[in-house]
Each structure stands twice: as structure tokens, then as C-alpha cells.
């Protein structure tokens, strides 16, 4: 252990701990902008400077390891003046139109400026003399260079967490900027729209593209019938933006709030998550049968899940030769969308052209997904508007709802039923677990051999998880799988997806089925989730997801009554002709830059 003094208080920390972390242990707050728990040390912004006894200059506490006998002061005149000047200098190059900014009241730079209570400018305002680019090309987010303070959290996120590096630092000095390849629009580079950078940007330089006003317009339009679906990960995180602690489940209140906002029908993505399991589970079993029994060499294994639109775009850019390995199933959002304007419209006797389909997602890539040209199987745009968890919180605040005191409510019927299997889609390993719960039962007629249906080997925060399930006691139809060992793998965060894909490319991946989620922790850590998101918070949300699952009466997708009903009334059976028409899709190869 290393002993040091911070503001005359003793603290002992492990070797390698930064001064910043040591101060945190003493509950001494040192401001930071470029530092983020998920990312490597950068030392770019300098806001965290502190005074070290005997040192000639101030040191950046985020980038300095604590050492024995160190004496640190965090609030001397020298430190205060330096920090104040640093923040002022950042502001001198920052287009501070705060009251009109999307990040107003949710901006780390604004918070610091507020703390320092600048009365006036000390330095010249350079914003007016600079040429800035505001890139609105992506349907998912806006990149506004005039707000950028070049802390490079986004650059580190894109490279360390997501292995994409769609953006990098370009030019130098006064011309330094965060740039895509040769300043191309973000819609035309390898960007997966995952929004992890948006979640980490300390200012308004990277924000989701919002569709709140379009959704309000639809709600107020008496001619429109507005349906809303909410993804499983939203209900365990929405509370954070409404004054709750991380990890609190607000499912019932959220449903009530959506009704109060004026949505005509409040439905659940859980329904189509269960449907995904039926379609994808069947697809997997059919692929296995064709490969193992029929010896069909054209069958691509392992099969990859296709729920995460960030992951889809990643493989389209980076590993297009493995597109046949992707499940052809649409994501739950898009299955829901396709059914809302067909099955639901018919059942409720509503003209599908009058239906506006809205989804609330923990995700920014879903905005891109809804815009894909393939996603129009109903004859209309299947999902009209996608809002993030954060945007829903904004709508709830705009409507003046007293969220905390709302009664709990339940989703409407027809596409509103849910199971525990669908809920866990929100956490890494969840789709795998849900698929195994159903597939194992189809093949053997028995429940998965795990206590209380909890398939623990596929859970948790390890970047890459592997598991083997031995299949025994098959029913007649699936006898060919008797004794077979189903090998599965799970990755979350594209840097981990890349590890698996490298193995697959080298022919060293023995798996049959692989679940990949673009975001760290799965959807609970999605780019559209409340800010901040970090490891601690992801773990709390994950715990909440599994608690939600345990609380459900139905915990297997094939037991969802709405799913059973839709096959009976509309789709016939999984992978039927109708299913393929509405619930399956195809993918495109994209450039790798």
C-alpha cells in the first residue's frame, strides 16, 4: 500500500492508483472533463490539476500515480486560478449557446463554468473567428464541432470500447479537431451509430438526433393512431433521469407515463423479443439440422444474433464475408414495427397509413436501423420514430408528470405481453439465455437443466463468455442432436466482438451460436441510456434486469400468450412464409473506412 496526504488527510491506496482516485477515496472532489471510468487515462483537459509539494508545476491528478509520502493539495490559490483559466480557455473556443443547447443542464463543461461563476470573459472569444462543421448526416446523432473541447473521450471510446475508430484526432494546434476519415460525413464512414461516444461526451458536441417534436406532433394529430413499444433495458434505467438511483425498476410507472403522454396504445418490445426467440431459435435448429444431418456445406455456422443494429453495421463494414452467418431475423424493434402496421392494424381495424409507430430504445443505432430501406415490409416505414431512454425522460418532464407518484400500470393487449426471457434481452447473454430456454425445451421436451431456469454461465460482465450445453434425451424429431454439445459464445462491446470475429476468420471458433451486443453490458449500457453510464451503473441495471425476470410468472418465450396467439392467427409457425416476409431481413456489405 502507498501512503500519501491529500489536503492534510492521510490515505492509503494500492500501487498504481491515481491521485484522482485516491482523492475520491477521501470523498474529495476534483473536477474532470476528459477522464472517464470506462476509458484509459488521457490527461488532455487539465482541469484536474492539483498542487504537489516539491513539484515545480501543477500535476494532472488523473494521470499521476500516487507515490509514497506524496503531499497533495487540491484547493490552493494556484490550483483554483489554474483551473479557472483552463475552464475559461475551453469556453473561449466553445460555442456556449447553453440555453438553446440540447445538453443544457446536462453538460459537464456547463457545470464547471457554473461552479466557477465567471462574471465576465477573461479571454477573447474565438468562436466567431473559427469555421466549424456541424454534421447532421447520421440519423442517430449530431456531431457539432463548435461545442467540442477535444477531450477525446469519443475517440478513446470508439477505439478502446468499440474497435472502430471511426473518428480520430486530426490536424494540430488551433486547427485540431475530431474527424472522421478525411472529414467525410458520419453517415458515410465506418461509424456503427452505437452512440457510446454520445453517452460519454461531456458537452453538446455529440448528441442524439432527437425526434421528440415529431412524436408530439403525431400524438396531437387526431387522425393518427400512435403506438409505442419500449425495449427491456429502458425500464431499468429510465428512473436515473427522473431522480431515482441506478438499478431501480420503473416498469409500471413508465407504462402509465406513456399512456398519460397520449400514446394511443402502450405495447412492449418484449413481445417481439419473444417472437425473435421463436424465429431465431427455429432458424438455429434448422441450420444445425441442415449442417449435421443433411451435410449441407452451404450452411453457415456459427450463427450470429442480429438484434443489435450497432453490431450489424460493424459486421457489414468489418467482416462482410460473414454476413451469411448472421441470423436473418430482424431485431425485436423491427419485428414489432412490421407487425404494428399489419397484424395489429388488421386486428384493431385501423388503416395502417394512420398508424405512427414509435419505439423507446436504450440505443441510438436503432434510429439508423428504423431508417434502413429494408425495414419497410409493412408497405410503410415499419418504425416511424425512435426515441432514446433519455428522450423519453425529457418528454415526461415536458408533460409535467409527477412520475414518482404515478400508479403502476400494465401494457395493452395484442403485442403487449411479456416474459422473463424477453426482459433479459437487455443484458449481455440474455438473448442466448432466452434462446436456450426455448430451444432446449423444443429439442428435449424438458426445461434447461439449470436451477430456476437461470443459465448463469452466460451471464455477467466478462467481455467474452463461452458455454457448452450437452443435449440429452431428445424427442423424436430432434434425435440427431442426441449427445451433441452445443457450443455458444457471447460478446458485448465491439472490441470483444472483434476478438470473436478474429477467431472465426482464423477458423478457430468452435461455436454453433454466438450472441453479440454492440454496447458494453448489452442494451443496459446502450448509447441512448442515461448519462453517466459506467461499470458500476451497468452492473446495477443488469441486476435489475435479472430481478425483473425472476419476478415474472412466464419466463420462457414460447409461453408468451400473445406470441402463441399471433402464430395461431397470423403467422402460422416460426420461419413460415409470412414470417419470412415480415420478420426476416438481409444485409449489405459496406466499406471499411
Amino acid at each position: 500500500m502507498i501512503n500519501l496526504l491529500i489536503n492534510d488527510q492521510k490515505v492509503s491506496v494500492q500501487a498504481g492508483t491515481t491521485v484522482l482516485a485516491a482523492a475520491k477515496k477521501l470523498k474529495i472532489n476534483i473536477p474532470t472533463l476528459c477522464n472517464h471510468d470506462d476509458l484509459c487515462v488521457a490527461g488532455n483537459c487539465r482541469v484536474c490539476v492539483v498542487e504537489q509539494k516539491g513539484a515545480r508545476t501543477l500535476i494532472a491528478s488523473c494521470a499521476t500515480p500516487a507515490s509514497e509520502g506524496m503531499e497533495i493539495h487540491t484547493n490552493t490559490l494556484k490550483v483554483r486560478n489554474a483551473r479557472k483559466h483552463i475552464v475559461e480557455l475551453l469556453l473561449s473556443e466553445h460555442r456556449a449557446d447553453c440555453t438553446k443547447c440540447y445538453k443544457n443542464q446536462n453538460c459537464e463543461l456547463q457545470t464547471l463554468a457554473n461552479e466557477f461563476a465567471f462574471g465576465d470573459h477573461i479571454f477573447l472569444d474565438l468562436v466567431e473567428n473559427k469555421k466549424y462543421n456541424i454534421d447532421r448526416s447520421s440519423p442517430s446523432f449530431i456531431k457539432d464541432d463548435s461545442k467540442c473541447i477535444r477531450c477525446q473521450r469519443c475517440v478513446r471510446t470508439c477505439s478502446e470500447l468499440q474497435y472502430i475508430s471511426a473518428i480520430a484526432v486530426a490536424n494540430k494546434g488551433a486547427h485540431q479537431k475530431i474527424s472522421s476519415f478525411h472529414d467525410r460525413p458520419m453517415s458515410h464512414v465506418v461509424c456503427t451509430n452505437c452512440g457510446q461516444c454520445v453517452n460519454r461526451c461531456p458537452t453538446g458536441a455529440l448528441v442524439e438526433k432527437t425526434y421528440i417534436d415529431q412524436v408530439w406532433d403525431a400524438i396531437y394529430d387526431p387522425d393518427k393512431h400512435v403506438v409505442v413499444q419500449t425495449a427491456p433495458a429502458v425500464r431499468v434505467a429510465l428512473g436515473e433521469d427522473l431522480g431515482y438511483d441506478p438499478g431501480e425498476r420503473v416498469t409500471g410507472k413508465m407504462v402509465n407515463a406513456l399512456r398519460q403522454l397520449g400514446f394511443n396504445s402502450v405495447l412492449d418490445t418484449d413481445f417481439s423479443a419473444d417472437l425473435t426467440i421463436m424465429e431465431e431459435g427455429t432458424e438455429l435448429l434448422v441450420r444445425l439440422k441442415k449442417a449435421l444431418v443433411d451435410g449441407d456445406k452451404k450452411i453457415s455456422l456459427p450463427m450470429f444474433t442480429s438484434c443489435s443494429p450497432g453490431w450489424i453495421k460493424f459486421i457489414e463494414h468489418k467482416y462482410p464475408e460473414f454476413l451469411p452467418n448472421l441470423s436473418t431475423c430482424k431485431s425485436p424493434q423491427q419485428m414489432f414495427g412490421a407487425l404494428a402496421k399489419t397484424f395489429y392494424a388488421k386486428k384493431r381495424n385501423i388503416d395502417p397509413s394512420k398508424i405512427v409507430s414509435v419505439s423507446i430504445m436504450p440505443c441510438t443505432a436503432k434510429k439508423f436501423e428504423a431508417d434502413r430501406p429494408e425495414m419497410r415490409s409493412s408497405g410503410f416505414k415499419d418504425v416511424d420514430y425512435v426515441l432514446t431512454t433519455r428522450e423519453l425522460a425529457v418528454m415526461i418532464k415536458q408533460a409535467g408528470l409527477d412520475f414518482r407518484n404515478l400508479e403502476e400500470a400494465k401494457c395493452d393487449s395484442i403485442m403487449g405481453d411479456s416474459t422473463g426471457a424477453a426482459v433479459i434481452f437487455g443484458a449481455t447473454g440474455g438473448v442466448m439465455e432466452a434462446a436456450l430456454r426455448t430451444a432446449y425445451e423444443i429439442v428435449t421436451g424438458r426445461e434447461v437443466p439449470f436451477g430456476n431456469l437461470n443459465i448463469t454461465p452466460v451471464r455477467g460482465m466478462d467481455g467474452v463468455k463461452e458455454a457448452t450445453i450437452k443435449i440429452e434425451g431428445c424427442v423424436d424429431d430432434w434425435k440427431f442432436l442426441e449427445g451433441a454439445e452445443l457450443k455458444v459464445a457471447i460478446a458485448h462491446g465491439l472490441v470483444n466482438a472483434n476478438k470473436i470475429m478474429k477467431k472465426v476468420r482464423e477458423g478457430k471458433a468452435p461455436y454453433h451460436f454466438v450472441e453479440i451486443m454492440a454496447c458494453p453490458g448489452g442494451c443496459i449500457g446502450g448509447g441512448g441510456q442515461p448519462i453517466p453510464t459506467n461499470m458500476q451503473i451497468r452492473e446495477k441495471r443488469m441486476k435489475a434486469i435479472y430481478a425483473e425476470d425472476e419476478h415474472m410468472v412466464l419466463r420462457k418465450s414460447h409461453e408468451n400468450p400473445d406470441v402463441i396467439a399471433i402464430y395461431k392467427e397470423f403467422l402460422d409457425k416460426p420461419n413460415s412464409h409470412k414470417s419470412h416476409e415480415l420478420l426476416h431481413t438481409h444485409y449489405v456489405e459496406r466499406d471499411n473506412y
Partner: protein
Amino acid sequence: MYQVGNLVKELSDKHGRLRESLMPILQEIVQKHNYLTDEAMVEVARELDISAAEVYGTASFYTFLDTQVKGKYVIRVCKTITCSMKGKSDIIQTLEEMLKIKVGETTADKQFSLIETNCIGWCHKAPAILINEMPYTELTPEKVSEIIKDYMQK
């Protein structure tokens, strides 16, 4: 616009495919072609298995690794203080008149590009210019016009 062909592959074989191979590879492409095309940068990214944005980021940091189309002869006029005081402006005026382009532009026949540069270390013999890698010093308008005439004959 040149075609990069096998060049990037050859250079990667020569310098390796590690992150630190990036600079020598980019430098050698620029030595040969005077600037980096998008195609060349994408090719380098592919060979080194890094992102194209990262290659562009590195290239754009260095003034001498141009990412805009440049002519066969790149004339860099030193804009730093000594050369400025010793008559840089006259040199630029002569060059602009002879080449019929402004600073930052390239002639229509893609023979000459005219740009300003920071100090090139010839303060004791100011004003100075570089044409590709060759320095010319203690210039006067007359001297510079002789030099350019020579290049025009080449």
C-alpha cells in the same frame, strides 16, 4: 490523381505492419507522389489493420504529409520571421505572377503547388524556399524566377 497500385503493399513489406510502421510508409508514399490520396490512406489502413480515420489523423498532423492534391513540384516558401523580414513577400509575389496561382493553389497542369511553410532552418540564408526536398536560399525575385524557369523546362 495517381493510382497507388502495389506501392503500399511493398512499403508494408519493407517497413513492417506495426503501428510504428505508419510514419515511414506515409513518408515514402509522399516522397514518391507528393501527397496522399484517400485511396492510398485506405490501403495503408488495410495493410496495418488500423482505422482509416487514424491514418488520416496522423497524416493531417504533419504539414509535409499532404492529403490534398499537389503538383509535381511543391514550392514551400518559409513564412517565419527571418524570411519575412528578408523579403518573403517579394518572393511570393514573383512566384504567384510566374505560376498564375495564389498561395495554397496548384497549377492547372498539376506541375506546381505553392504553399507557405513554417521555419525550415535556413534563417542565416533567408529568404528561403523548398522545392520538394531541395532548399534554395538567399533569394531575390530575379533568382527565384531563374530557378522556376529551370523547373518549367524539366
